[in-house]
């Protein structure tokens, strides 16, 4: 009896590990499918549009508000050390290295992992995946590869746009609310921001985009039967993608930190 909670934790840990193992196998299958023709350009273009372009508003708004809030917080913290002038550079560094990719990735996870899982899951339960196979089309190549590639390429671009908008959000608050001189704010931003700050964030974005699409496709392809199965697949895709993004973010940050 006393051990019941322990057993529950053990069971869910095992379930999680085997889940990660299965996603790992799916990852290998995706890579294998990527390397062999045919390549479906039309599907890829469509995925670029739905995953990348259509996520711009959400990612942009998220970055705008985050940049603004960040400026206020850093001002509040900085003023304790009479260091208010760090606001522009810390906003820029914070957005580029951490908040741009992480928040952008999470928004894409909410928007894209769910829609991929729901779409592919519905295809699975309505036998469309079976139909693809009978029409000599590999679902991994036709559905998974275009989405994974499109997300890997487009999320870094989204992050770059998000970074700029976030820095702009900080600029608006800094100059409008905190009394910074516009020219000084911009100079302070550019003087201290290094190329690696930005590229490390873009690398994170690529990894997060890859994870989001991979997880969305995985849960869609393995959806249970019926509407309930698709609902569950969608939920699992968003939760798993979000957790994986945060875990990967820590690992990447650790890696970049020592590098």
């Amino acid at each position, binding site marked *: 009896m006393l051990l019941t909670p322990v057993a529950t934790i053990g069971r869910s840990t095992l379930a999680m590990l085997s889940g990660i193992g299965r996603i790992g196998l799916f990852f290998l299958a995706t890579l294998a499918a990527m390397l062999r023709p*045919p390549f479906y350009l039309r599907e890829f273009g469509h995925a670029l549009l739905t995953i990348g372009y259509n996520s711009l508003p959400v990612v942009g708004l998220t970055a705008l508000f985050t940049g603004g809030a960040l400026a206020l917080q850093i001002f509040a913290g900085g003023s304790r050390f009479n260091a208010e002038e760090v606001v522009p550079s810390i906003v820029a560094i914070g957005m580029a290295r951490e908040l741009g990719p992480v928040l952008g990735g999470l928004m894409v996870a909410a928007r894209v992992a769910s829609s991929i899982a729901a779409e592919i899951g519905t295809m699975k339960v309505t036998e*469309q995946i079976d139909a693809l*196979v009978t029409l000599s089309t590999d679902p991994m190549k036709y559905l998974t590869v275009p989405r994974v590639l499109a997300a890997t390429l487009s999320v870094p671009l989204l992050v770059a746009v998000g970074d700029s908008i976030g820095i702009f959000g900080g600029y608006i608050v800094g100059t409008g609310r905190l009394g910074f001189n516009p020219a000084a704010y911009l100079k302070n931003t550019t003087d201290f921001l290094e190329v690696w700050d930005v590229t490390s964030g873009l690398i994170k974005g690529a990894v997060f985009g890859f994870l989001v699409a991979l997880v969305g496709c995985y849960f869609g392809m393995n959806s249970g039967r019926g509407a309930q199965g698709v609902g569950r697949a969608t939920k699992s895709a968003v939760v798993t993608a979000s957790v994986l993004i945060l875990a990967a973010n820590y690992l990447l940050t650790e890696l970049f930190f020592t590098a």
Partner: protein
Amino acid sequence: MIELRDVHKAFGANKVLRGVNLTIPKGESMVIIGGSGTGKSVLLKSILGLVHPDQGKILIDGHDAAKAEREAFLARFGMLFQGAALFDSLPVWHNVAFRLLRGKSRLARDEARDIAIEKLRRVGLKPQVADLFPAELSGGMQKRVGLARAIAADPEIIFFDEPTTGLDPIMSGVINDLIREIVVEMGATAMTITHDMSSVRAIADDVAMLHDGVIQWVGRVQDMDNSGDPYLNQFIHGRADGPIEAVR
């Protein structure tokens, strides 16, 4: 020729196929009947390799289907799924022409589209339907688009999973004639699942009844009425009482 030897398939505790033995001669039309949920769709999917049997062998022209080179193997088949299984992101004509647009002998888009429109006409659909999306069609129309897709590449072996379910009697007649025509004219081997006894009589050379995971009865369609098999009799006359339980 398609041969199933002692095919078993279970989903968890649900033993669906329990030793199916069946032979479909080349160029013949075999109709599978049986109560809903008895595993008729699973049987077709096993032959195509969409479902992997737990036990048993499936031979196509004497070759083990499980060991066949997938692409070449599947190119010989056409399949109409029970729920039509149209791709909702593609217009109707692209659904029908899907196979024609890929693979080694792929056609140009215009050419594939023309063939698609011709196949749509054969299942009683107007050319205007070609540019609609599946979600804009009624269930019966979707079924016929699925049928057009199954026959688009003139396959040697065609599976029809409940081709006339959801169609009005006239359209059912059109589809029955079409299936018969495909077998007679193109010499295709057909396996059709249906609950509609008038379809059975119109389409079948041979009839097999699946019950309790095995083939309960198999024979020529003309022998169906005086088989003396109580299961078959109950089914073809649609009686509520008999050896087949109504609650399954």
